[in-house]
């Protein structure tokens, strides 16, 4: 019981973020990068963003429509992240293919066909504050009482 409380307390405010670019135009990528700047300052919420490493991450931010090479690698990347984990799809490309989902394309959107997605942030590109909002909104819901939810499954 105490242990659960402790876990909840710790998980409420210390996330590691990892970041993957599955074929974006870089527009969303730089807006994700802009969230670490002093104006938006993602680190003040206890989120660690530097040195993205899937093996110690809690949150996976994915931008871009899925390109040929990423079709198999997305699942591999997802499996490398330890439980509990949250996937945030950033940008219209990641949500639906956006502007690239047209005749002649070489992409296979959306992301959610390949891995489970917890939050989608539409926009081309979304503002940094919206990305921040999505991360802060969805992560605590998934991480709270995670072990209990797993046991009841």
């Amino acid at each position, binding site marked *: 019981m105490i242990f659960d409380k402790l876990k909840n307390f710790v998980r409420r405010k210390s996330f590691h973020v990892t970041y993957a670019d599955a074929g*974006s135009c870089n527009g969303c990528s730089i807006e994700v990068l802009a969230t670490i700047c002093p104006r938006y300052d993602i680190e003040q919420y206890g989120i660690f963003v530097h040195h993205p*490493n899937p093996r110690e991450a809690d949150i996976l931010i994915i931008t871009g429509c899925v390109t040929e*090479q990423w079709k198999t*690698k997305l699942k591999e990347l997802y499996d490398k992240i330890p439980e509990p984990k949250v996937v945030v799809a950033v940008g219209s490309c990641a949500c639906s293919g956006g502007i690239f989902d047209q005749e002649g394309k070489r992409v296979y959107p959306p992301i959610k066909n390949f891995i489970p997605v917890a939050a989608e942030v539409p926009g081309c590109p979304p503002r940094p504050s919206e990305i921040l909002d999505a991360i802060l909104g969805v992560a605590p819901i998934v991480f709270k009482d995670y072990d209990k939810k797993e046991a009841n499954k």
Partner: protein
Amino acid sequence: MIEKNVDVSIPIGPLHPALKEPLRIKLHTVGERVVDAEVELGYMHRGIERILKGKPWNKAVYLAERVCGICSNIHCMTFIETLEKISDVEPTPRAKYLRVIVNELDRIQSHLIANVSYFLGIEHETLAMYTLDVRENSMDLLEMVSGNRVHMSWNVLGGVRWDIEDHHLKTILEMLDRMEPRIRRYMGMFEHGPLLQLRSRGIGVLSYEDAVKVPAVGPVARGSGHPESDWRLRHPTYRDIFDFKAISRKEGDNTARVLVRFDEIFQSMNLIRDAIDNLPKGNIQNKGRVKAGEGFHSGEAPRGELKYFVKTDSAGKIDDITIRTPTRLNLETCARYMLAGSPSIADAVAIYASIDPCIACTEG
């Protein structure tokens, strides 16, 4: 195959803490020294040229600027200028100036983020955060002028999408005045910081001969003493109206490339001030329609020469299009001349960041 005596081949990427975009760099090392490097692309290919074929030109503008999200405006501008060349349409005098203002604002923003990723590459987070903070100001200006932070769709055939109002022009001038001393300070911190220079000076040297051979373009070439690589020298607006002079440095190392970018930021600021002071009154759009034909045009993206080849049919549809982006050339230069010979593997990452690569552009 390489027949050198190689100890270990170290792969970096496709997913790696130091890389913002997926690509694989293979470093062949002897001890800590890198003797050869290979670059493997293919993770970001979206087939944008194929999507563009058969699209009406006004839809193609939105796709062309989504080739790259960092230097979005120059793609839009070069594409439109190619169409204007094909169909003999001239932008109005006011539109020419407005194009320069937004293009240079975009360049400031792009050069700042390029330097941020270099500072993150050499692990100097403080300076990176300072620079990233200044960048937000230029993003604000872009948003105020065009309504969007990244993809602005600013250019249309024969002009620009809408006018910049006078009080907005005033805000731009004020903001530039506020940004300039800060950027000068950060430039000084980089130029005179002993530890920063230890990681940068004399690392990743690209000689003038090698830069011309590949050829390298953009700040990479200008860092090696090749000012003619700036295509703004050949752009009619910059050449005739602004009397543009390119900046270059001789050293060819990481420091030179970063400082060239800093210098170009101040140059862009002066161009914007010039443009705002002499802004002519009048229309912002000329009427015209796209004719059948084909043509080349080059523009100076923040990363170097950007080349468009477009073929249109009489209905204004794109028959054929080829885009050659600057990073394609710079990556080649980087792998062949700069990474090979890097004193350590940690420096290889910094060298790679110093050419300001944009893989999304390159693969399209």
